[in-house]
């Protein structure tokens, strides 16, 4: 037990437990759905998860600072539409440039959110609930009820979801899925190793202490919103490629799925704890449930209720288990501290470096 404690943090146990839950869910669905364990199911789930995952990464940055970004669904819809409009009118545009434009537009909306939250001192829920409606209204206004159509775009846009990065036997890794995974890894590294990443945790764990320590809290929160907006722009581009036809309803309700994914993934909604890997696992669990429930022949009205129930169960059971673990770990930490005081060994510093901040 002690060796486990030494090498694993409660957050890692949580991530492991999420993996176990995902495996159990897959096994249960496997018995209920014909032909479930196939490469097709993998592609299906990964394609549906990729967009939520990219959004969850951005959301995690914001949630770590004790804030929230509810406007991402509208940013996705708006960037998907504008990017689609641009590529429809300029078929020769370089794909990479289009992605950058989408991310730039998203970042622009992130700036608005960030300015209001970080420098306007308005609660994040209020700001982003407002911009959720404003951005959607903007989309309704600029679209003039015209949809973006696959037939007006160059072929590569619609084909992109089917392009493989690498194929090993039956296993195919789609480019868009690879982009999502790369995003997760990149931002996980940032959280772990860059000062900016560490500061996100510091602000979320204890804003007052972070302020006293002289951290530029406003700027850190501001940048988190810009990054979240830019990632929502990237998700918007992926949305465009995946669905092709973009109406003004594109991305409605995505924010709820993303917040659910982040919370299920162990990112504390009150800031300060969580990882990108966890957020990704949360997205995978929610995407798996969603895609699999559709394939089970159950009544429409039950699907949403079941999904909600699963999310609630995941959070409640997880919270109960995690709190137990935290207690275990903290009591152990105390013992270690007592030991270390006796032996003068700086064990507690080691704990700080792992980024685990014990809750009072």
């Amino acid at each position, binding site marked *: 037990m002690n060796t486990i404690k030494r090498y694993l943090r409660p957050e890692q146990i949580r991530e492991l437990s999420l993996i176990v839950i995902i495996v159990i869910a897959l096994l249960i669905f496997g018995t209920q759905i014909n032909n479930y364990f196939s490469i097709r199911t993998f592609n299906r789930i990964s394609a549906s998860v990729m967009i939520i995952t990219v959004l969850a990464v951005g959301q995690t940055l914001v949630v770590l600072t004790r804030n929230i970004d509810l406007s991402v669904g509208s940013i996705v819809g708006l960037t998907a539409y504008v990017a689609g409009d641009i590529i429809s009118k300029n078929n020769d545009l370089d794909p990479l440039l289009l992605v950058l434009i989408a991310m730039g537009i998203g970042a622009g909306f992130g700036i608005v959110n960030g300015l209001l939250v970080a420098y306007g001192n308005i609660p994040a829920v209020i700001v982003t609930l407002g911009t959720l409606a404003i951005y959607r209204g903007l989309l309704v206004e600029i679209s003039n009820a015209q*949809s973006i159509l696959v037939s007006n775009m160059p072929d590569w846009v619609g084909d992109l979801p089917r392009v493989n990065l690498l194929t090993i036997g039956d296993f195919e890794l789609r480019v868009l899925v690879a982009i999502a995974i790369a995003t997760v890894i990149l931002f996980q590294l940032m959280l772990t190793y860059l000062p900016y990443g560490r500061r996100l945790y510091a602000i979320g764990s204890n804003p007052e202490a972070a302020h006293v320590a002289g951290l530029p809290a406003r700027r850190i929160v501001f940048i988190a919103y810009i990054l979240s907006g830019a990632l929502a722009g990237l998700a918007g581009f992926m949305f465009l490629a995946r669905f092709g036809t973009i*109406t*003004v309803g594109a991305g409605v309700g995505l924010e709820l799925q993303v917040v659910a994914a982040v919370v299920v993934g162990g990112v504390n909604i009150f800031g300060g704890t969580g990882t990108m890997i966890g957020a990704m696992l949360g997205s995978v669990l929610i995407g798996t449930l969603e895609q699999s429930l559709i394939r089970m022949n159950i009544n*429409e009205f039950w699907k949403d209720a079941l999904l909600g129930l699963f999310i609630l169960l995941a959070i409640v059971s997880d919270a109960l288990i995690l709190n137990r673990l935290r207690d275990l770990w903290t009591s152990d930490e105390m013992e270690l501290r007592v030991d270390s005081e006796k032996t003068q060994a700086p064990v507690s510093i080691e704990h700080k470096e792992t980024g685990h901040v014990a809750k009072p």
Partner: protein
Amino acid sequence: MKRFTLLIMFILMLSSIAVVGAQDDVVVAEPGQEVDMVLLPKFLGILVFDQAHEGALEAHEELENPGTLEFVGPGPGEGADAQIPFITSAVTQGVDAIMISNNGGEVVEPATIEALEAGIPVVSWDSPVTAEGETVFIAQVDFDETGQVMADMALKLLPDGGTMAILSATPDATNQNEWIEALQAVLADDPETYGDIELVDIVYGNDQSEDSYNEALGLIDQGVDLIMAPTTVGIAAAAKAVQDEGLCGEVLVSGLGLPAEMQGFVEDGCAQDFALWSFVDLGYLTYYTAYLLATDAIEGEVGETFEAGRMGVYTIEEDPTREDGKRVLMGPFSIFSPEDIDNWRVELDEE
């Protein structure tokens, strides 16, 4: 493209006028009266509703109405009750007529009854309210005919039988539910013709691309032969899902769709036959009817005959598809097949 579709529809209209012919006591609208009107679609931002608005605006200008024509409605993805505040606020503002495409089943009925009690005519279009909750319904096509048209498209695509599933819009949309019922009735009433077509599932994509896409994937996994989507959003999403799965031609896609949105899919063989009517004309006819009701030129009783500008003469009749309902029947259906894509694609290219 719009202008051209309009022209085609106009020609089709002319032929229907010939059938109706001249009748006695045809009420003609007197232009220039001030009538404030509200046009309430299911959602904002859906092309077909914008086309209806276009038609209403055309009539608005033609009748030189100095009053206002408001085009308001819920944002995309809102619930069955989202239209109610717009009805209530129209009543409070004291508008002279409300034109609504109902997205809430019987949920909106109390609100429209309130409007009727305040003396405001409620003209439903596209999707009716209820017999009590409206003055008259402007039916784009005969609802039983919609079932027949869908059944015939299914029969054409599945001559040797097979499984079919319906991808609908929202579970509360009155028109969707009646079309589905009509389709089921056609299938059940003539087992000799349609007996081999098995309706295996009905799913709802809520008129959103991603929901519809996911539901279509679910249907593909169930192994259905034909996805029938009586909604323009649903049919396009189903075609994209079939395309992404590489199953074009194996899983067939049909329903109600917009030529502009469907032509790419039809060219690739990822969608087959589909049907629709002119939403511009629907908005135009709805406006004329509401204007005549608001100016007391007609009462909204069965048997009243009136002239609706360029579209000709219409009569209010009992709605055979809904008990106690009154309707003005527009029609007709336009069927768009892959075989004659050259005809309808050319129209689009001349935009």
